[in-house]
């Protein structure tokens, strides 16, 4: 491996890692607060991509401008799903909850297929042809913008969770929902907000990815498999863990592709996954829970 390839792999890994982090942060939030494994997370990403696709195609909107629509729209979509689908089964056994999110995953994928067809779609914007070059390293401007937005969103979310009362309430619910109830936090409402935020993160990631990738009804699984690894790597429900884990996996895939083969890069990812489960099941940032 020469330096040119090294720096390219480093750049690609970090840029892609930003996206993984954003997807994983949303997933870990839902997992941490609601203790629910949301298998439909990738489908929210996929629907976010479609929303951006259609807004760009039909109304000629700038793909990044669509964020001001996708984020609130999917926040409310998440709130509604939580309110009507997940809240009613919160006390049900875990298998039931898993079945529900799995069902939602299959439903949304098929709904997208029904509405939009199985075709691959992609958008071409003014940004598409702007490529940035630093030394020998090339990257699309869309990739950098995606990265910057992903970092802005995760940072904003981090500050929100740390500094605001609602953010603290969300953390409180994720730690000790019973205690949260006793201090007067409307736990079900917090659940709705948390699910809404998680959904909005996935959809925002979708909007940001749209100018780079393509969308079809099955794209969600591609991203969310990686996001699950990131979440486990960082410690289930751990925000910082998801953020750092996103970059670790991004770099691991990137260097895995160079050193081994692109065909084997998922092998690298899942090797990390298995090692973490064996050596540190709580994840890098996880703490033991009594």
């Amino acid at each position: 491996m020469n330096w040119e390839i090294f720096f390219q792999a480093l750049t690609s890994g970090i840029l892609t890692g930003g996206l993984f982090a954003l997807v994983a942060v949303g997933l870990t939030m839902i997992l941490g607060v609601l203790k629910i494994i949301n298998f439909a997370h990738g489908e929210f990403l996929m629907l976010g991509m479609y929303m951006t696709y259609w807004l760009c195609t039909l109304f000629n909107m700038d793909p990044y401008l669509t964020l001001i629509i996708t984020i609130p729209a999917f926040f409310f979509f998440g709130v509604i799903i939580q309110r009507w689908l997940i809240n009613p089964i919160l006390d049900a056994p875990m298998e039931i909850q898993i079945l529900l999110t799995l069902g939602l995953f299959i439903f949304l994928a098929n709904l997208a297929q029904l509405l939009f067809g199985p075709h691959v779609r992609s958008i071409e914007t003014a940004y598409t042809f702007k490529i940035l070059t630093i030394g020998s390293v090339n990257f699309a401007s869309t990739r950098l913008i995606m990265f910057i937005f992903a970092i802005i969103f995760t940072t904003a979310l981090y500050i929100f969770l740390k500094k605001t009362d609602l953010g603290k309430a969300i953390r409180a619910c994720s730690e000790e929902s019973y205690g949260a109830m006793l201090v007067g936090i409307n736990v079900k409402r917090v659940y709705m907000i948390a699910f809404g935020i998680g959904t909005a993160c996935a959809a925002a990631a979708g909007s940001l990815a749209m100018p780079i990738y393509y969308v079809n009804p099955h794209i969600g699984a591609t991203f969310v498999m990686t996001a699950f690894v990131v979440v486990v790597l960082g410690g289930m429900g751990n925000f910082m863990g998801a953020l750092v884990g996103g970059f670790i996996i991004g770099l691991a895939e990137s260097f895995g592709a160079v050193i081994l083969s692109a065909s084997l890069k998922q092998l690298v990812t899942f090797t990390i996954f298995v090692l973490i489960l064996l050596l540190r099941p709580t994840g890098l940032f996880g703490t033991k829970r009594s």
Partner: protein
Amino acid sequence: MISSKELNVYYRQVHVLKDISFEIQKGEICSVVGANGAGKSTLINSLSRILPLKSGSISFNGEDISQYPPHRVVELGLIQVPEGRKLFPSLTVLENLELGAYQRRAKEKREDTLREVFSLFPILDKRRAQLAGTLSGGEQQMLALGRGLMSLPRLLMMDEPSLGLAPLIVKQMFNTIKQINVSGVTILLVEQNARKALAISDSGFVIENGKITISGKGSEIAENEHTRKAFLGL
């Protein structure tokens, strides 16, 4: 202050509370005495509106709260300091206290209350930036109580506040409870340590198998032949 009428509560399939009716006057300390599993914690959780009522009603300050969700009950000033504390371990001491004043009524006076809590428990002030999970048992109990006070309680329900504490700290705890009561907060106390609890109580009642068997003034209950044998170990 608070009263219940023919309360029936099930936990899972078990009929835990059977026709519970009682009343606590404003400004009192009231002790609930009973064996493990008699239904004391269930009673407190029913009053906090965490457990659904099968039948009966609860009224607080003249308001029927039978159908209220838990957070509205907190807003009214009916506060529980739970058994096992239920703190937020990876949040700081300060954040735990701040969350105590989450409801609007308490939030408005948050800074003032915080000062009062810190003067009551200076150790919490010293540990304000520390994570709650790293505190000692006694400090955690203080934090739990402090968090409860942050909610500006009108009625404070304490579930086993002395559980697992060293004798010296238990003594401090009871002093603090009296102090809180003197400042105008009505208190409902559930204690294993029934003798100490009844000693500071104005009234009390005994729950056996989900039913109130004896009720009256604190001193009356402490002297009752049956209670002495069954719960006070005399």
